[in-house]
């Protein structure tokens, strides 16, 4: 069942491959709602490779910028460089996102559960409770985007059976959950981790293993996942980076290694 896999060589890190794999998921012409961090690296990488017409939209009111390396905030002047419009949060979250004009949104979160619900508000209960930044635009993205892309480190505690708090709706309680809540059912989720790519099963809505990072086994993924994901009928292995992808990422998109040095914490890659 486990496909042939090549071990990750010393020529790239798993983190780099996560960004590259997420970039591959963007189609030319997609209108992408993105924050900073690894999602922005993935989006700019897509623009510089197979998807030059990807349009970036950033919550603070920035539309179609030509981002300069390497912004660390949605209000960083680097994300505003040569935008076609600098507007308002309402124009972006209301008139584009809720209006139904965004194809893909990038999200992060401290917890992602079986049905792709996301928690960025509070983890734990009672005295061990840890407060997180809250929704920001995340709930809005999950409510109104047609596709969600999540880049995250693969750890058991990040993938519980059920989130402690649902900040952003995935498929809620499963098939029909979104319609019952009043949300559009035209929705799909892809989670790219350092171990695998998870996607929602179109029938059950649950996240399942769709691809493995080179050298990773299904068993390793299951061991690092708090719920037990199904395995897609044809699990592929994530293709290795091309030299061009690596060069762009390292030399042009994050030359100072602001994000590529180490995996980000959930709070900073989240928007």
């Amino acid at each position, binding site marked *: 069942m486990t496909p042939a896999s090549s071990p990750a060589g010393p020529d790239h890190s798993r983190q780099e491959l996560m960004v590259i794999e997420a970039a591959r998921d963007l189609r030319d012409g997609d209108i992408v709602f993105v924050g900073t*961090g690894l999602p922005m690296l993935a989006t700019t990488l897509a623009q510089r490779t197979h998807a030059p017409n990807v349009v970036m939209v950033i919550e603070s*009111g920035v539309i179609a910028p030509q981002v300069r390396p390497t912004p660390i905030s949605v209000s960083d002047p680097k994300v505003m460089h040569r935008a076609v419009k600098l507007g308002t949060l309402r124009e972006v979250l209301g008139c584009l996102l809720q209006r139904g004009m965004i194809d893909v949104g990038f999200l992060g979160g401290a917890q992602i559960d079986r049905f792709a619900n996301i928690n960025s508000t509070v983890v734990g209960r009672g005295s061990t409770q840890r407060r997180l930044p809250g929704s920001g635009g995340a709930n809005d993205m999950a409510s109104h985007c047609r596709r969600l892309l999540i880049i995250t480190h693969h750890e058991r505690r990040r993938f519980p059976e059920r989130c402690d708090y649902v900040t952003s709706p995935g498929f*809620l309680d499963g098939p029909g959950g979104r319609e019952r809540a009043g949300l559009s059912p035209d929705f799909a989720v892809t989670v790219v981790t350092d171990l695998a790519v998870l996607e929602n099963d179109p029938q059950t809505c649950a996240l399942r293993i769709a691809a493995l990072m080179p050298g990773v086994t299904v068993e390793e993924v299951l061991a690092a996942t708090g719920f037990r994901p199904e395995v897609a009928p044809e699990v592929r292995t994530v293709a290795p980076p091309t030299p061009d992808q690596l060069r762009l990422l390292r030399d042009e998109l994050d030359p100072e290694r602001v994000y590529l040095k180490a995996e980000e914490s959930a709070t900073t890659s989240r928007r």
Partner: protein
Amino acid sequence: MMSETRQRTRDKVLTAAEAVARYVRPGAVLGMGGQNIGRCPMALTHEIIRQRIGRLTVVGCNLSIGMDQLVAAGLVRRTESGSGNLERFGVTFCWRRAIENGSLEVEDYSHLAMVSRFLAGEMGAPFMPTRSLLGSDLLPATGEAGKAVVIEDPWNPGQRVALVPALQPEVSIVHVQRADPSGNIIIEGFATHEPEMIRASHHVIISCEELVSTEEIRAHPERTTIPFLYVDAVVVQPYGAYPTSTYGHYDYDAAHVAAYQEAAREGSPAVDEYLRRYVWGCATFDEYLALAAGSERLIALRRAMEEML
């Protein structure tokens, strides 16, 4: 009614101390401009801390370093927002600690839900419909009208829609690039939730990088973001958003943001010491700028912005 007493004079230029004393009262609902590390109204925030005006309810979309310092100073009773963080620089640590230890009430919305509340407020509408929140734990479980209610869309029976209540802050503080003495203001670059929040507020204090003449405003009426009718006080304060950035003027100061965050993460006594040194220890914001940055650093931040554009 608050709105009846809006300032109608044509010269609204005040010092930060005068403006804050006049328009921010203890217990007020305070609207915060800016986002993350961009255009946070730091000069006006410091002045509120200096005057120790407490029991505030702080509202906004993303609440950031300004709100966190107000919390650190013990002046905040409650926040209503979409998030509290400084992204790459981490969360708003004092806010987080205050929530975790139960000393701060917090009402969580999404950013769109907060903008929708300000939109209702500026339109004089009692609420705004949204399809955000639905299905999530941001939506209260009970049907009682508080944080939000869910109704059926009258035009599409069976379709649910959330209503969020209008929010009209008693006073908002916003730092902008340019304003004239009567309060016409020009926001350059991104404007986040500020236009809606400003128009929704009963009183507005603006700090600005540059004071321009009303002549200049009238020469380009399509560039005015907000007309003077909504503004009560104009405070001229170059670098008034430092250590956050002001688009077109200067970049953020990563080192000083990080220094605050280190103190904030540590909590007492580090963060008290920060406030003593940089806020209570400074009679004016200019003193703070000299102490925290110095003119060379400030000029370098200006150059960094110029190079970027």
